[in-house]
Every structure is written in structure tokens, then in C-alpha cells.
């Protein structure tokens, strides 16, 4: 059996590793000269920056991605920092920014700033929402109806902005509760030693060890179909046949290659659904400093910043990600779709935030990276993901445009890959 994978991002490599291990003949086609998509490293001024993700795995060594990596035999060490997550709040209740000082709160104590009444309500909702999960509205709307307090919106915007690059108002309540549930089930984030590239490199090793090939600088421009099946792809002008094709380039790009195909059941409805998908956008500011700005390898959530949702300093866990004696700190801020035309202003607000969050600290901005549209944070914003199937029975989609329910970023990719591979391989996958 032969499988072709379009795109060598994390979803493509995970699928290729699993299939090559299951005995498939696997060829991965990658348009760029580098492997790893938005989950690898780029070297800049001696620092290991990244093409996308912030060198972090949302559920660390015990999450769905770590489990899948272990299953395929990818050798990656993921370290969970201590503290795992810290929330920076204002020094005094009632302050609305960090200008007059701050206090750091362990994530476990996120309930402290709630009113006594809301703390009691929270205990009740923690049980009742599990039994009967709310549906049909945004997380923010649910909060308005149940926990209406300034802190509710701040902490939910910071948390969802950091984890899925969306505001609480843009996360469906079903997805928000699934994410919270997973947080309790799997635990908090960790850093892969060596950064994102350590993960994708380990997968490449697995694929090659099982006879698979990865072709870089090889753009797939078309799909070959017969009736309701895909029979192969066209890359760099050459045809390659396959029994199954897995696309890691998102539903819209995959659909585009099918748009002129006729006679496929359900294609029109699929194209319509795909056209409604909205990628999520964000800005990452990469900072270098001699002394640590955060001082631990966990996440610092910043609910009182204007734009920045959270920051990490991965060199507290893996010092090799920066030149000796230097630290690498990265902030993330969600960019709302209505602000995409004013990216420069959004960047300025992010830079002002960092100044306020780290007063009197010395640092230098290395690079400001933004992600949207064709190279986004997520190809499909969380909660709106389509399944990994297409109207063609042997054509699948994986990646951050087909994340599994409640899966933050790469954890969602791992959950989506698991479901798709289960469809292909059946029970042997479990």
C-alpha cells in the first residue's frame, strides 16, 4: 500500500511516521526547502527561533502529542517547567494595568480574584457543566450569564488568546469546556528539548528508518481522481500514484485542487463548508536578554496587558535555544480578524505591553513574527474544525485545519491525526 502526504508540517509527519511504521510505502511532498512547516526552528542571530509554535507543547510530556510521539518511537524529551503556569495580576485590586506594580499568582489559584459569590458558583459549575455541558453560544456569552465579573473576561481572554489565539467571544462554549477538561486530564505545557525542530526531526528519523521519503522543494499542484477516489498527485509536473493521500495543507487548499473536478458526491457542500473556515491570527515577539525576564520555564499569562496574552522563556528549560549567557523570551498575542488591517498598531501595543510587564529590565527585540491568512496560527480557528475526511473516500486532511475536539494547537493536531489514522488503519491503531 502506498500513501502520499502533502506537506511536511507536524500533522503530515505524524501521519507519515505512523503509516510507515504500519508498513505503508510513504512519500511526503513538501513545497518549501525545509521540513517541519510551522513547527520547526529557524536560526537567527545565534538564537533558535521558530517558524510558528513557541517551542512549547500544550500538555507537555503527558498529552496526546507526547503519547503519539512515543507510540511511533520518536525520541523527544519534553520537560514540564515548574511552576507550569503563572498569572501576572495587578498589585492592587481595581488597577487595570501593570503601571502601579504587579503580583504573580500560580495558575492553580486563578479563582482568588473572583468575588466570594462567584467562587461558590464556580464550584457548582465545575460539577454541573461536566454533567450537562453548555452549548450553542460563545464562551464569553456563557461567562456573561454565569460569572459576570471583569476578572472572568480578563483571564479567559488571556488563556484562550495564549492557547488558541482567540478571544473568549470567538471560542464556542463547547470547545472552551472541552479544552478546560483536557487541561485537567493531561496537565500543563512542556518544552521539547531542542525546540520544535527536535520533534519534527525525530519524526523524520522514524519515517526514514521505515523506508519513507521526504521530498523538499516539491510542490503538489494537483490531485488525480477517478470517480470518488483519489489515485495520485502531481508534484513538480510529475504524476505519482497512491492508494491514499493525506493532505496537511488544510481543507481550503485541498478543496481548491478539487474545485474543477466533477461527478463527486458531496463535493459542492464540502466546498461551501470549507469556504466558511476562518484561520486564527497572532503576533509573536521574540526577545533576547542577558538576565532572565521570567526566570522559570512555564507560561506567564498577562490578563492585564492591552494585547499580549502570555509569554514564555524556554531557555530556562533548554539553554541551548540561545547563545551562551542569553535568554530567549517569546510573547504571543491574539489578533482579532477586524484588526488584521492594522497589524503595525497591534505590534506597537504588544511592544508597549512588554515594557510594562518587564519594567526596568533590559532586553532587546530580536524579531516580530505575525501569522494570518495563508500562514496563520491555526488554519481553522479552534471549535470550527472540520473532520479529517473529504468527499473522496481515500483523501484525508490532517493538521491545524482538522484538529480534534478540545485539542489546543499541536495537541489538536495529534488528536486529529489519531482519528484519521484510526479511519485508515482500523483497530490496530488503538
Amino acid at each position, binding site marked *: 500500500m502506498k500513501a502520499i502526504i502533502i506537506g511536511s508540517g507536524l500533522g503530515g509527519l505524524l501521519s507519515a511516521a505512523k503509516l510507515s511504521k504500519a508498513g505503508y510505502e510513504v512519500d511526503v511532498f513538501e*513545497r*518549501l*526547502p*525545509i521540513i517541519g*512547516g510551522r513547527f520547526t526552528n*529557524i*536560526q*537567527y542571530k545565534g538564537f533558535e*527561533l521558530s*517558524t*510558528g509554535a513557541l517551542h512549547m507543547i500544550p500538555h507537555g510530556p503527558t498529552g496526546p502529542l507526547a503519547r503519539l510521539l512515543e507510540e511511533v518511537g520518536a525520541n523527544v524529551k519534553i520537560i514540564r517547567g515548574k511552576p507550569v503556569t503563572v498569572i501576572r495580576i495587578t498589585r492592587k485590586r481595581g488597577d487595570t494595568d501593570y503601571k502601579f506594580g504587579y503580583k504573580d499568582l500560580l495558575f492553580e489559584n486563578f479563582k482568588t480574584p473572583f468575588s466570594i459569590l462567584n467562587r461558590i458558583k464556580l464550584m457548582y459549575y465545575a460539577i454541573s457543566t461536566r454533567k450537562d455541558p453548555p452549548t450553542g453560544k460563545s464562551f464569553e456569552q456563557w461567562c456573561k450569564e454565569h460569572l459576570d465579573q471583569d476578572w472572568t473576561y480578563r483571564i479567559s481572554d488571556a488563556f484562550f488568546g495564549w492557547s488558541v489565539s482567540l478571544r473568549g467571544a470567538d471560542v464556542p462554549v463547547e470547545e472552551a469546556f472541552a479544552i478546560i477538561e483536557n487541561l485537567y486530564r493531561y496537565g500543563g505545557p512542556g518544552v521539547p528539548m531542542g525546540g520544535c525542530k527536535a520533534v519534527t526531526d525525530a519524526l523524520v528519523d522514524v519515517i526514514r528508518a521505515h523506508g519513507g521519503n521526504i521530498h523538499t*522543494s516539491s510542490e503538489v499542484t494537483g490531485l488525480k481522481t477517478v470517480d470518488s477516489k483519489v489515485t495520485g498527485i502531481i508534484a513538480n509536473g510529475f504524476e505519482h500514484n497512491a492508494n491514499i493521500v493525506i493532505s496537511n495543507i488544510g481543507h481550503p487548499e485541498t478543496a481548491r485542487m478539487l474545485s474543477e473536478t466533477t461527478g463527486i458526491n458531496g463535493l459542492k457542500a464540502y466546498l461551501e463548508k470549507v469556504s466558511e473556515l476562518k484561520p486564527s491570527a497572532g503576533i509573536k515577539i521574540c526577545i533576547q536578554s542577558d538576565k532572565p525576564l521570567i526566570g522559570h520555564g512555564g507560561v506567564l499569562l498577562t490578563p492585564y496587558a492591552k494585547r499580549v496574552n502570555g509569554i514564555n522563556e524556554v531557555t530556562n528549560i533548554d539553554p541551548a535555544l540561545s547563545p551562551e549567557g542569553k535568554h530567549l523570551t517569546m510573547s504571543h498575542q491574539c489578533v482579532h480578524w477586524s484588526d488584521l488591517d492594522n*497589524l*503595525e498598531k*497591534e*505590534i506597537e501595543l504588544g511592544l508597549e505591553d512588554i515594557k510594562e510587564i518587564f519594567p526596568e529590565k533590559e532586553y532587546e527585540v530580536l*524579531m*516580530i*513574527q*505575525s*501569522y*494570518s*491568512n*495563508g*500562514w*496563520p496560527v491555526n488554519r481553522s480557528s479552534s471549535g470550527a474544525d472540520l473532520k479529517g475526511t473529504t468527499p473522496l473516500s481515500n483523501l484525508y486532511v490532517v493538521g491545524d485545519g482538522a484538529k480534534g475536539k478540545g485539542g489546543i494547537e499541536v495537541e489538536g493536531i495529534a488528536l486529529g491525526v489519531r482519528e484519521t489514522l484510526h479511519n485508515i488503519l482500523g483497530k490496530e491503531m488503538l
Partner: protein
Amino acid sequence: MQSDGESMKVNKNCVGCGQCAAFCIVDAIDIKGKAIITCTCTDCRKCIPYCPVKALEA
């Protein structure tokens, strides 16, 4: 075929991901919301294939 960097262009596809800047061998690309080609550019075109959204044109 090297000139003074006047022919490299950034088209509207650019999202500002900075990938080109990391692969530029003369540090000629600034990033702020999108890529900005500075006068240091030698038109070597090495950055072009690294752009994930085909935003670089010579």
C-alpha cells in the same frame, strides 16, 4: 546578476512570519507586520523559496 537590491519585491501575500529574514544571508530583511527589503539586499534571491506564501518576487 547582482544589483543594488532594487528588484526584490514583497507582494500582498506576505503575513510577516519572518521566515525570509532568517534565511537572508546579508541580513537585509526587516519584519514588522510584513517583510521590508532594505538597501542591504543584493538581489541574490536566496530567500524566495523559503517564503511559505509566495510573497517574494524578483
